[in-house]
C-alpha cells in the first residue's frame, strides 16, 4: 500500500516541520514520522502499520532514532513534532531493524515456491530491500498448523504468520466484528478464531489483502494463478451502487481476482467479499454471438433482421392503430450498464420518437445495507441512468409499468423485473446483453455486448461520482461494447447520422454525453490506462 495519503503541507497553524535524514519536511499536525518519511521518498520498513488501520506498533520493524530521545522509537507511533530531528539511516536504528527482520524470519517456513503471496509479499520485499543478509540460524524451525480453515473464504497457515495483527484490526475496523485473536505466547503464539466461531464477516477477504505474508489466503484465488504473472487494470466494482475502486488482476484474457484500489472518498482501502466474486459471471453464460430467433447469426444479419422488424413500426403513422407506430416500441435502459451505453440507447429512443422508455435493473437487496460499503441497490449505475434520462428529456419509469401498447422491446441487459411470462411471450424482444439468461434466452434478436471489465466507460455511483473503468481484456467471441451495437442499430434504422448517433469511440460517446448532461459538463476523458505487469510494478507488498 504505497499510495498512502500524502500529508499535504497545510497552513502554519496546524502543520509542523521536522527534519528526517537531513531533509526538512512540513506535514499536518498529528501525522506520524513514518508517513512524513514516505512523503520524502524514504521507505522505512514496516509490517504492522497500515494507513487505513489503527496504529499498534507491534512489529517493531519501523524503529528510527529521534534526537534527544535515548531509545529508538517506532516511527508509525511517533507523532511528528515541530523541530524534531529524525534519523533513519544511522547505524543504531538500521541495525535494530535488521535484527528485527532476522527474528521475523527465524521461524518462517521456506514456502515461497508454493506460497500464494510470493511476488507480492511484504516480508520478501523488506528482506530484499532492507536486509539481504545470509541466515545465521541452524536450529530447527517451530512448526505450527499449515491449513487452518478460518471460514467460508479464508485459509490460515499459522507457520507463515508473523503476528502483525493487521487482520485482527481489519475485522474490527472494516467489518466492525472482532472475529480474530492471538492465542498462546512466545514461539507458540498463533492467530485464531474463538472456539466454534468462524471468520465469516462480509469483508473477510480484506484480511488477505492486508496480510503482509502468505498466512491468510483466499479460497477463491489460492493455487489458481501466480501473483507476479498477473496484470492490473484499474476499474470500478459493478457489484453495487457504492462503486468501490478496484484493480482487475487478469492474465490470458480473463480476470483472476479483484482487489480494492485506494480511494479516500469511496472505499478507502477496502471492498466487500461479494464484490470480489463479481468477476466469476464474466465467464459464465456469456452471449458470444448474435442470435436471430434463437439461432446464431453474424452481426450484419442480426442488425438487418432488427431493422427489418423495426422499420415498418417506426415508419407507420400514429393513425395506423395502436399495434404499430413508434409507440409500439419500448426501450429499456439498464442500471447495470455504463453511462455511455445508456446514453447511446437513450439518444436512440429519442430519435425513434417513442415515449416508452423504461429503466430496469436487479431488484434491491435490503439485507445488504450495513452502513459501511454494502448498500441495498445492487446496480452499479442507477444514478447515471437517472441523470441521462433527465438530461435527454425522457420520462423513464420502472419496466414493471410497461405500457400495454408496447409490442417490441429493445432492452439493455438481462433484467425485466415485474413482467410476467405471459406478457413476455407477447413481446418481440431485441436484447443487447452480455449474458444469455432470463428473457435474453427467448429474445427474437440478441446482440452480444462486452461486459464491464472488457469495455472502457464510466459508471455513476450512489454519491453521484462518475468513475472510469478501463478495458482489461478482450470480450468473448463477437461481443462488442453495447454502445457500438446501439450505433449499428441506429444506422440500420436510418436515424444514426441525422441524430448524431454515429460514434466511433467510447470517448466520443462520453464527450457528447458530458455536453448533454449539465452536471457532468466539467468532466474530461482521460487517456486509456494499459495493463500494468505486477511483476514490474515496483514495490508490491
Amino acid at each position, binding site marked *: 500500500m504505497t499510495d498512502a495519503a500524502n500529508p499535504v503541507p497545510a497552513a502554519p497553524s496546524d502543520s509542523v516541520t521536522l527534519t528526517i535524514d537531513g531533509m526538512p519536511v512540513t506535514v499536518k499536525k498529528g501525522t506520524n514520522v513514518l508517513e512524513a518519511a514516505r512523503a520524502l*521518498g524514504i521507505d522505512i520498513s514496516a509490517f504492522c502499520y497500515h494507513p487505513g488501520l489503527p496504529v499498534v506498533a507491534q512489529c517493531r520493524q519501523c524503529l528510527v532514532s529521534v534526537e534527544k530521545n535515548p531509545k529508538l522509537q517506532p516511527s508509525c507511533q511517533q507523532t511528528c513534532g515541530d523541530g524534531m530531528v529524525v534519523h533513519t539511516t544511522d547505524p543504531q536504528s538500521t541495525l535494530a531493524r535488521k535484527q528485527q527482520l532476522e527474528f521475523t524470519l527465524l521461524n518462517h517456513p521456506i514456502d515461497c515456491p508454493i506460497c500464494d503471496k510470493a511476488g507480492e509479499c511484504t516480508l520478501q520485499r523488506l528482506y530484499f530491500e532492507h536486509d539481504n543478509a545470509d541466515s545465521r540460524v541452524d536450529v530447527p524451525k517451530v512448526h505450527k498448523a499449515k491449513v487452518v480453515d478460518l471460514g467460508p473464504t479464508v485459509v490460515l497457515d499459522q507457520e507463515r504468520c508473523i503476528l502483525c495483527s493487521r487482520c485482527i484490526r481489519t475485522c474490527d475496523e472494516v467489518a466492525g466484528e472482532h472475529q480474530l485473536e492471538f492465542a498462546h505466547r512466545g514461539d507458540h503464539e498463533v492467530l485464531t478464531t474463538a472456539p466454534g466461531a468462524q471468520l465469516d464477516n462480509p469483508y473477510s477477504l480484506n484480511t488477505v489483502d492486508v496480510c503482509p505474508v502468505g498466512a491468510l489466503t483466499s479460497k477463491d484465488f489460492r493455487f489458481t494463478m501466480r501473483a507476479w504473472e498477473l496484470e492490473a487494470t484499474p476499474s470500478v466494482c459493478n457489484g453495487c451502487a457504492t462503486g468501490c475502486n478496484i484493480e482487475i488482476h487478469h492474465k490470458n484474457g480473463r480476470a483472476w481476482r479483484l482487489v480494492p484500489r485506494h480511494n479516500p472518498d469511496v472505499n478507502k482501502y477496502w471492498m466487500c467479499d461479494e464484490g470480489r466474486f463479481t468477476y466469476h459471471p464474466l465467464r459464465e453464460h456469456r452471449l458470444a454471438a448474435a442470435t436471430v430467433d434463437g439461432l446464431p447469426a453474424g452481426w450484419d444479419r442480426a442488425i438487418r433482421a432488427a431493422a427489418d422488424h423495426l422499420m415498418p413500426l417506426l415508419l407507420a403513422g400514429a393513425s395506423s392503430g395502436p399495434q404499430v407506430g413508434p409507440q409500439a416500441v419500448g426501450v429499456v435502459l439498464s442500471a447495470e450498464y455504463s453511462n455511455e451505453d445508456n446514453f447511446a440507447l437513450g439518444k436512440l429512443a429519442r430519435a425513434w420518437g417513442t415515449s416508452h422508455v423504461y429503466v430496469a435493473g436487479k431488484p434491491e437487496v435490503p439485507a445488504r445495507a450495513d452502513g459501511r460499503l454494502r448498500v441495498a441497490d445492487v446496480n452499479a449505475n442507477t444514478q447515471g441512468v437517472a441523470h441521462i434520462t433527465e438530461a435527454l428529456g425522457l420520462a423513464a419509469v420502472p419496466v414493471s409499468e410497461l405500457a400495454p401498447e408496447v409490442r417490441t422491446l429493445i432492452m439493455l441487459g438481462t433484467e425485466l423485473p415485474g413482467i410476467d411470462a405471459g406478457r413476455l411471450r407477447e413481446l418481440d424482444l431485441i436484447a443487447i446483453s452480455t449474458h444469455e439468461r432470463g428473457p435474453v434466452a427467448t429474445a427474437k434478436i440478441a446482440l452480444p455486448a462486452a461486459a464491464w471489465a472488457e469495455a472502457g466507460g464510466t459508471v455513476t455511483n450512489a454519491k453521484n461520482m462518475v468513475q472510469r473503468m478501463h478495458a482489461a481484456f478482450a470480450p468473448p467471441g463477437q461481443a462488442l461494447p453495447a454502445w457500438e451495437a446501439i450505433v449499428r442499430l441506429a444506422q440500420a434504422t436510418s436515424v444514426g447520422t441525422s441524430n448524431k448517433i454515429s460514434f466511433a*469511440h467510447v470517448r466520443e460517446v462520453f464527450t457528447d454525453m458530458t455536453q448533454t448532461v449539465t452536471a457532468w459538463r466539467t468532466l474530461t476523458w482521460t487517456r486509456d490506462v494499459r495493463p500494468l505487469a505486477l511483476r514490474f510494478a515496483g514495490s508490491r507488498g
Partner: protein
Amino acid sequence: MSAKVLDALKATHGSAIESTETQHGDDIVWVKRDHLLAVATWLKNDPAMAFDAPVFTTCIDRLDWRPSHVPPGPPTYPASAPWSEGQARFEVVYQLRSTKHRHRVRLKCAVPEHDARVPSLSVLWPAFNWQERETFDMYGIKFDGHPDLRRIYLYEEFVGYPLRKDYPKEKRQPLVRRDDLPINPIKPAQPPGGGHR
C-alpha cells in the same frame, strides 16, 4: 573533460539549452527543439568541440514512466519524477563523439505527442540517415528535412509504431496470412484521432 562540453554549450548557446545533467559519467544536454540544428551544427564545426563522429539516434517514450527507487528528496534530474499529461511524451536522443578530443555528449530534445517532429541531423552526419529512419519506423517521430524518411525494418503496410509504449507487445500484424493466428486480428489500436483526449 566532461564538464567542458556542457560549460561551453551553456556559455555559447545559453538560450537554446533547457538543462544539462551528468549521469554515470555521461553528459546530457536538453536542447530546445527550435535550436537543435543550430546547436548540432556548432558542435560539429567548432574546433574545440569537433563532434565529427555520430554514434546513435533513438527515442524514449515516457508514457509509462513511473520511476521507483529514486533517491529520497527533491528530483535530482528531469526524469526522476513520473510522467504526467502535459509533459512532452517523447525524447529524441542523439549521441555524438569526437575523434579528436575523445569526448562524448548526448543531445536530448523533448517532443510533444501531437507534434512529433524534430529537425533532421542527417544533413550534418550521414550516419543519422538510417538511424532517423529507424526512429521514425519504431516511434513515429518525423524528421524534418530528412531526404528519405520511410520505414526501414517494417513494411509499408504496418499500422502504428511498435516501440511506443501504448503498442501492445502481443499484437501481431502478419503481412501474409498465417493459419495459427485469427483471420482478422488487425483492428486499428485507436480510431482516427487517437485514443486519448
